[in-house]
């Protein structure tokens, strides 16, 4: 059995060597979580407050450029302005990616970063338009980080009502058919967010719900719209009048109150508890988790009313969390973070990357490994199962990165055998150590360690 410190590093963090001051016991890990978000302070991110302005500027200059399409002399200048404004948005998006890497690579509290990544994936949003490039990270900043060890209901409210979610799942265009705007424009519902809220974010596809629940939820959500200057607002003119019944309970009243009420109810339903207990167990422990572990987590969810710190406590108290073999595949993002950390890079290094090298050595490879940054195929986020990642294509991309990129990042390269022991501790297998000794160059020796099964599982 692997020693608890190594398990803490691999299963609940971004691997070895453990950063200075890293908590490794359940109590210390929970204490760190309930303390201040040091990583967010050290490497500040961009929330809605920072990204709305540039987004609005770009939107305005785009409109101006379009309006001047027929005036050749002015059109060029207007288009140039749009390009300049769009570059600010793009830079923010890249900056947010760098900040995310900085915190994961640099923070001593790896568990917090892993949890943020877990919930960010749970509430996946994708920027479908270039203008929205910095929005998905803003959702993580505003809705996930502040609540990562708080009440799930608060995270659910914040994520559901975040402009990035409203935009991604088309809520901003869903109109109550009998609302003032709906009657005037003869337009109506879009059930995208309503469905995923039930199916993915809360009770899960195995929960007992019907198309009618989805429809009623869609009606209930009308009025939630995105305002380019203010962010999320509730607009009564869009809202379907009257009460709606979702999962057997009737929600009535004006404004946002009934929406907040349904979100609070969903957050503590037993189906939600089971769905998310299972998802947490799959993510942290194994693709086919012990049903007893899932039951314990679900129970703590129910007992605590969806207090995430309590659920994490139950997870860290469970023997399976420490005894189960480390069989999960690190996803490409985890693999890169763990590799960069193991190579000795820190948070500041992630921010010091110039734009192009960061894209060439980090974001580009992420895509080739099968996990293009913040663009999973759908709102269900990334798959968990190891076969989804350790495919011939995916593994070839990891080997390729391991053999070529580290040499460009660190000089001098570490001694491969020391590197193996530092980054894998007791997990470094005999075959790996045997092979590392026989590699033809330091570059290849380090590459073998990073490409090894030990390094790619957690």
């Amino acid at each position, binding site marked *: 059995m692997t020693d608890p410190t190594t398990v803490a590093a691999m299963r609940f963090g971004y691997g070895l060597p453990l950063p200075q001051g890293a908590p490794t016991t359940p109590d210390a890990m929970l204490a760190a979580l309930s303390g201040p978000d040091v990583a967010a302070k050290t490497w500040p991110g961009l929330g809605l407050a920072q990204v709305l302005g540039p987004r609005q500027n770009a939107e305005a200059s785009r409109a101006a450029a379009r309006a001047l399409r027929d005036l050749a002399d002015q059109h060029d200048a207007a288009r140039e302005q749009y390009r300049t404004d769009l570059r600010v948005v793009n830079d923010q998006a890249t900056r947010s990616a760098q900040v995310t890497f900085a915190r994961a690579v640099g923070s001593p509290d790896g568990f917090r970063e892993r949890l943020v990544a877990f919930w960010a994936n749970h509430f996946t949003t994708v920027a479908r338009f270039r203008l929205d490039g910095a929005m998905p990270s803003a959702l993580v900043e505003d809705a996930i980080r502040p609540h990562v060890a708080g009440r799930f209901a608060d995270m659910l409210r914040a994520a559901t009502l975040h402009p990035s979610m409203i935009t991604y799942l088309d809520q901003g265009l869903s109109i109550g058919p009998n609302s003032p705007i709906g009657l005037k424009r*003869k337009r109506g*519902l879009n059930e995208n967010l309503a469905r995923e809220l039930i199916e993915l974010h809360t009770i899960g596809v195995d929960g007992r719900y*019907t198309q009618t629940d989805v429809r009623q939820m869609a009606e209930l959500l009308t009025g939630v719209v995105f305002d380019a200057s203010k962010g999320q607002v509730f607009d009564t003119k869009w809202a379907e009048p009257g009460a709606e019944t979702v999962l057997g309970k009737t929600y009535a009243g004006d404004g946002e109150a009934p929406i907040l009420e349904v979100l609070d109810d969903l957050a503590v339903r037993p189906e939600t508890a089971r769905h998310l207990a299972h998802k947490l167990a799959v993510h942290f422990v194994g693709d086919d988790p012990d049903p007893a572990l899932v039951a314990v987590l679900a129970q703590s969810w129910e007992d605590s009313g969806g207090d995430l710190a309590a659920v994490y406590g139950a997870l860290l108290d469970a023997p399976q969390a420490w005894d189960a073999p480390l069989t999960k595949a690190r996803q490409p993002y985890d693999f890169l973070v763990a590799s960069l950390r193991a190579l000795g890079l820190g948070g500041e290094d992630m921010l010091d990357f110039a734009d192009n090298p960061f894209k060439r050595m980090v974001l580009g490879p992420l895509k080739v490994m099968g996990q293009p940054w913040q663009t999973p195929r*759908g709102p269900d986020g990334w798959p968990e199962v190891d076969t989804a990642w350790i495919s011939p294509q995916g593994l070839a991309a990891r080997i390729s990165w391991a053999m070529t990129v580290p040499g460009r990042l660190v000089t001098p390269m570490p001694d491969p055998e020391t590197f193996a022991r530092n980054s894998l501790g007791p997990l470094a297998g005999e075959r790996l150590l045997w092979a590392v000794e026989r590699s033809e160059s330091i570059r*290849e020796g380090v590459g073998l360690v990073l490409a090894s099964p030990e390094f790619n*599982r957690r």
Partner: protein
Amino acid sequence: MAMNRRFFLRGAALMGCSVAAHPLMSTVTLAQGGPGFGDNRLVVIILRGAMDGLDAVQPLADPLFATYRPTLGVDTGATDLDGYFALHKDLGGLNDLWAKGELGFAQAVSTPYRDKRSHFEGQDMLEAGTGMDVPLNKVKDGWLNRMVGAVPGMSAETAYAVGREALPLLDGAAPVRNWTPDLKLDLSAQSQLLLEQIYHDDPLFRDSATEAMELAAEMALGADNALPAPSDPAARKTADVDTLVDFAADRMKGATRIAAFSLSGWDTHRSQAGAIPQSFQKLERMILRLRDALGPDWGKTTVLAMTEFGRTVAENGTRGTDHGTGGLLITAGGAVRGGRVMGRWPGLDEAALYDRRDLMPTSDVRSWAGWAMRGLYGFDPALLERTIFPGMQLGDDPRLIL
């Protein structure tokens, strides 16, 4: 332990626990009278995100269509197919195929999946090829893999999953290959040997690495006989499609008989008229490029493009469509008997709709695939109904294949 699934299955196949021992194997008769898959090629395209079949093949002759779709169903510019249905204008490049009988459609098809309308469950069921009686998480292989496994004497080269994305359709016991043509893997001989050593005890890594190294070596050795890169800007948009198709076609001119792709971009909840053209253009390109790249082998090729479910008959409040039920199957290739819109058309009267909102499914998409496989490779109906598509009923022969 989950990590061992793939190894276990592959390992079993490698160790000679041959599929030929399957009790139903003796009933397989093979097309072309020879062993293996003969010359017939099958390409399966999974259209992820629920393609709107009513936009692809529009029932323009039904006046109700325009009332359900006041913006999406009028002045669509679609080309008439058979006096009732018309082909979306952004699939217009396929009209020649239609005229030659190399393109057909089946309307109102579905998997057995009902009611929850989840993309993710819908795709799982589409690729598992099972019914509502089997929990999806219990199905560990895909129907196309089971088909490959049902033929003795195939090699790993027989079937390819092409692209970066997983294609569960081809997962399973029968050895198949997974590759994406835009990957390079330059390794020294020594590194390759050492990697083989460190992967020795982890079957998932071992199998993936072995396949990757073999393919990378082949790719490096292989002559570049791809079609020239497109020069016009419209075609450049589909360059990624071309790369995938050229790779697959190149393989299929060799020993490969089965290929599978994914094509995403169909979840058109809003402003569908602006969003769906580029997806149609990619699909059109995929089919036409395949025809061009396969050359004479196109005559022995069948393409099946299928999606997890259709979309609502009525457009929604945002000029898009929401998740529905009955959808569309597209068949193409020199081997198909096309020029027809097949399937029992249920009509658009509200009472005829599923849940009063979706096109009523009138046939199982699996039965069409089943008839295609039977036509191409001579599979016995019992094998199709029990092993490849458990619980499926073939029904009447639509005579899909020439």
